[in-house]
């Protein structure tokens, strides 16, 4: 088998294990562990008057009950504000267990530990918590009106006012030949990984060490948080992310209350304790995202070129701000997309509401930014009577303009400077792929079948691979096995395959010999985490650098043995050989053995490295000064700034004008993430993203009522699309390598989800001729829109006969 695997569609090596039930997820661990269950707030906003546990005490199998009163030291303090920011002027976080007040339905109040989960739930059910209800603030508009407040000391409900501007927007708007002002909304959804969160902790009282398994996207940081909050020395805490059944952002938040409380109980009880989140808990006590109100003012010229853009966003942040204002910053800075915006001002007001916290969900503020920008493009086209693709084309950043500086500050605190891209080519490819110029024929054909057809498009640029760093460790064993580890975690991305491809290519070994470990602090203690489409960029490059280090050392040792110049050596199929001299070779595994001078032999391979077997020079020590035993190398990649991927989506919808059902009949994607490690994995990422994009546009919504009760906290009523709802997707690729990292790659994890709502809103609007100002949209809402006296008719529908006139 060839060892040049970078760029090949290698089948995912982990899939056979995962799809035949041999994965090891959190709930597969600790079969005999005690189980934790939680009493959670049934109210959106209330004071806790009393917690009466008496009725639970005689439940057979009950082991312990914890309330806020049982928390000590740092654990009794609020949970950390993970990412402080100067504009986050009023940060608030909850406590691991509620301290006198609850701010959303689902907030944990009491933890019960029992012999199993059934018993724990029996006991939890008997605990009586008395609440004094407070007025609930639900939805971005209510938060803004501030007739009630979530946190007493923050009467306007504003956590942060994030503000960036690139010039003086008001005069630029005033001087613009045309202006438009409008308001639009995006609703709440959530990542909904198929595996919820979960924590298992085991305390070894003899050596006072704690091992925690948690379904997380950031095991190293969970480890630091546990050590800090439980006041344990870092070296006595191990945190392992086992197989993780999806993350989509919700598991980057940490420490979740349970990640502290379960270890706390394990230590206190001297027993293994496990908590496995159930679906209902996940709905009301994990994290959501996406609700925003967007007020947009745009200036443009007769050709549709934007002259100024002023955006004011009201961002529903939920009850707390543990993850800082990352999502608002991303909306603010990624909104500009692939376009030249001469003068831009953006303000994002993050407001508190009595709902589940808002933290990044795949896309992390970008879908909303894309919705703002792309719907602006559609409106400009509509006003001027121009083709929507033409207006976009005229505003695109040109290939000659890279690196392109937007003069904004990104989520990593670094400038938004696009490193590379070819946006006009993306748009051109998209038009061909979806048949943009032939859409009128399709429209006529659909009309003949009694259906309304529309097409829409949306473009995006996605900052990926933010720092600060990731590391990689590569070690060749005497058996020829190549062990690779990196600290960031895996939650289904196929890292066992893609990272192995990188090592196989860099080192010249068969991929079958490469074993990848991620997210285990025992193997690699320094890491940041898996989020922001960064794993391939960050760990991929770090692992490549580590593999190159191993390769250099292997060539050095082999050169000694083969009495050749290292520059004349090559490694292929796990063998080092003198280029062009057959027979002058040494297996890499032998090099690994020789790299570790031995006194003791315990197998045949080891004998080769013992002191009487090696023909070593007597003039230098067995381990050269500055060198180290072993054929291994650890390296880190720390980027100067994020690298910017890009893409363009188009959707064709058909609508039944009798039932207003919306059918996505074609969905086209052109995707550019620089050099591609594994195109099959990238396509999978794009398809999964599109599925979530379609879900967010047409099906999913967190339906809170005015009292802050989530009305659809189950998969029966929260309409995550089935495979049958996800359209077939045609994908075309473009590769503009990143000049910023050694492998030239950009992130691909989130891209697929970003333009879904924008493209589908545009397509539906095109089909029905009514302005779509709020997403998601369902058939019943579309019916309301079509009957509404006040719904705005698009100019395009007026120009076209028959439709919507």
């Amino acid at each position: 088998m060839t060892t040049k695997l970078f760029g090949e569609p290698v089948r995912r090596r982990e899939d056979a294990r995962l799809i035949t039930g041999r994965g090891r997820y959190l709930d597969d661990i600790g079969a005999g562990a005690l189980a934790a269950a939680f009493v959670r707030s049934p109210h959106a906003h209330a004071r806790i008057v009393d917690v009466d546990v008496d009725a639970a005490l005689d439940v057979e199998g009950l082991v312990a009950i914890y309330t806020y009163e049982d928390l000590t030291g740092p654990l009794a303090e609020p949970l950390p504000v993970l990412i402080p920011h100067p504009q986050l002027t009023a940060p608030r976080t909850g406590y691991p267990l509620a301290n006198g007040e609850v701010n959303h339905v689902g907030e944990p109040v009491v933890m019960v530990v029992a012999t199993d989960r059934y018993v724990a739930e029996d006991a939890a059910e008997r605990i009586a918590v008395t609440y004094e209800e407070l007025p609930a603030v639900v939805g971005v508009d209510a938060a803004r009106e501030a007739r009630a407040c979530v946190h007493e000391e923050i009467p306007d409900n504003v956590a942060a006012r994030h503000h960036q501007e690139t010039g003086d927007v008001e005069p630029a708007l005033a001087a613009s030949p045309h202006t438009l002002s409008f308001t639009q909304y995006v609703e709440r959804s959530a990542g909904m990984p198929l595996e919820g969160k979960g924590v298992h902790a085991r305390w070894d009282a003899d050596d006072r060490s704690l091992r925690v398994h948690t379904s997380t996207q950031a095991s190293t940081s969970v480890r630091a948080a546990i050590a800090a909050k439980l006041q344990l020395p870092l070296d006595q805490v191990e945190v392992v992310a086992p197989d993780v059944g999806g993350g989509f952002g919700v598991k980057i938040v940490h420490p979740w209350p349970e990640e502290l409380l379960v270890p706390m109980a394990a230590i206190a009880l001297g027993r293994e304790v496990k908590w496995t989140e159930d679906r209902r808990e996940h709905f009301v006590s994990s994290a959501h995202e996406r609700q925003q109100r967007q007020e947009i003012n745009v200036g443009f010229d007769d050709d549709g070129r934007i002259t100024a853009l002023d955006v004011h966003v009201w961002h529903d942040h939920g009850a707390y701000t543990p993850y800082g204002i990352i999502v608002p910053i991303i909306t603010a800075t990624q909104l500009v997309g692939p376009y030249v915006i001469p003068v831009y001002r953006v303000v994002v007001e993050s407001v508190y509401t009595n709902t589940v916290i808002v933290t990044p969900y795949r896309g992390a503020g970008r879908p909303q930014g894309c919705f703002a920008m792309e719907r602006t493009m559609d409106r400009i086209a509509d006003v001027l009577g121009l083709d929507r693709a033409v207006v976009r084309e005229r505003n695109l950043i040109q290939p000659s303009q890279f690196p392109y500086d937007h003069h904004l500050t990104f989520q990593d605190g670094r400038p938004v400077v696009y490193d590379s891209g070819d946006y006009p080519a993306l748009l051109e490819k998209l038009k061909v792929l979806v048949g943009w110029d032939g859409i009128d024929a399709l429209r006529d054909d659909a009309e003949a079948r009694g259906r309304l057809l529309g097409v829409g498009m949306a473009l995006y640029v996605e900052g990926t691979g933010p720092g600060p760093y990731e590391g990689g460790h590569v070690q060749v064993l005497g058996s020829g096995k190549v062990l690779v580890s990196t600290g960031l975690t895996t939650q289904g991305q196929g890292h066992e395959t893609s990272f192995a491809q990188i090592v196989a290519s860099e080192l010249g070994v068969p991929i079958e010999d490469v074993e990848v470990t991620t997210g285990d602090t025992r193997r690699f203690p320094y890491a940041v985490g898996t989020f922001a489409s960064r794993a391939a960029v960050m760990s991929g490059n770090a692992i490549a650098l580590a593999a190159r280090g191993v390769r250099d050392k292997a060539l050095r040792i082999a050169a000694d043995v083969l009495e050749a110049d290292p520059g004349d050596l090559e490694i292929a199929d796990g063998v080092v050989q003198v280029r062009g001299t057959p027979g002058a070779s040494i297996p890499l595994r032998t090099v690994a053995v020789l790299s570790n001078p031995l006194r003791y032999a315990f197998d045949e391979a080891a004998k080769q490295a013992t002191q009487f077997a090696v023909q070593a020079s007597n003039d230098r020590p067995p381990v050269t000064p500055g060198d180290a035993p072993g054929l291994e190398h650890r390296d880190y990649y720390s980027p100067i700034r994020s690298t910017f991927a890009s893409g363009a989506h188009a959707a064709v919808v058909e609508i039944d004008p009798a039932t207003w059902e919306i059918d996505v009949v074609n969905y086209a994607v052109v995707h550019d993430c620089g050099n591609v490690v594994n195109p099959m994995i990238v396509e999978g990422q794009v398809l999964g993203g599109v599925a979530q994009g379609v879900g967010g546009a047409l099906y999913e919504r967190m339906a809170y009522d005015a009292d802050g009760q989530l009305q659809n906290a189950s998969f029966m009523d929260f309409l995550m699309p089935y495979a049958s709802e996800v359209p077939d997707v045609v994908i075309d690729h473009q590769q503009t390598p990143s000049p910023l990292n050694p492998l030239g790659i950009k992130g691909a994890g989130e891209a697929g989800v970003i333009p879904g709502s924008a493209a589908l809103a545009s397509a539906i609007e095109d089909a029905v001729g009514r302005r779509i100002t709020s997403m998601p949209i369902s058939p019943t809402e579309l019916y309301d829109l079509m009957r509404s006296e006040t719904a705005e008719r698009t100019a395009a529908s007026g120009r076209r006969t028959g439709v919507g006139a």
Partner: protein
Amino acid sequence: MKPAPFRYADPRSVPEALEVLAAEEGAKVLAGGQSLLPLLSMRLAAPATLVDLNRVPGLDAVEVTADGVRVGALVRHAGLLAHDGAARVQPLLARATANVAHPAIRNRGTTVGSIAHADPSGEMTSVLALTGGSVSVAEPSGERAVGWQDLFVGPLETSLPSVAVVTSAYFPALPPRSGTAFAEVARRRGDYAVCGAGVVVTLDEDRRVAAVRASYVSVGLTPEVHDLTDAVAGAPVEKADWAAAGALARTLVDPDGDLHASADYRRLLVGVLTERTLIEAAAEAAGGFQ
């Protein structure tokens, strides 16, 4: 999401099941479990005892005669769906069952259980009503038939006493010169319908419309059968104004709104689905003449 403690009984006969039901207050019958088990897991229901019928012999038969189809209490949706004989005598059975959830649920869930559950968003309650069917109920005093009109009292509520087991459901055969159709609009394929419609069109011997009946899913608190004959009575089948029947249906129903559909939208769908299914059913009825 773990059920509260319950006692479990697995009787080997219907009388034995009745004994357990009589002896244990708050006992609940378990057949396919596709509605009951999620309710237990979410602790929305916490019966003291579950009486599992699955080991009772003789309840898993589909009996077909020229007059109708009797479906035993343990017949799974999938079994009924695949039963050609049943489909011939009463085509609505297969047509509606095909809309019940997904294959995994159809493989476990039972037709009779779904009727006894009396969920107005279930397909089979509506079909029982539309076909003029009944259920056979075993009680300590003996077996009796309960017509659909007397069975459904409200959402998830029947007139049956707590010590009773529904042993079968009976669906009368499709009358001569008749056609049927069944259609649904659901948010996702296999979901509970936002609105479903089943119709029966019966012609007279001159191919004129003699009778039109419709019943809906997720419309109203209990299944209802609406007679739409007035809109099209006496019209030659090819010329009948099915849109008028749809319009009439809209005036007869009283749907509620929920997260997935407003009452108005449901009413719209009643009209659209009525018209569409009637066209199909009429074509089938007319086809019977050739």
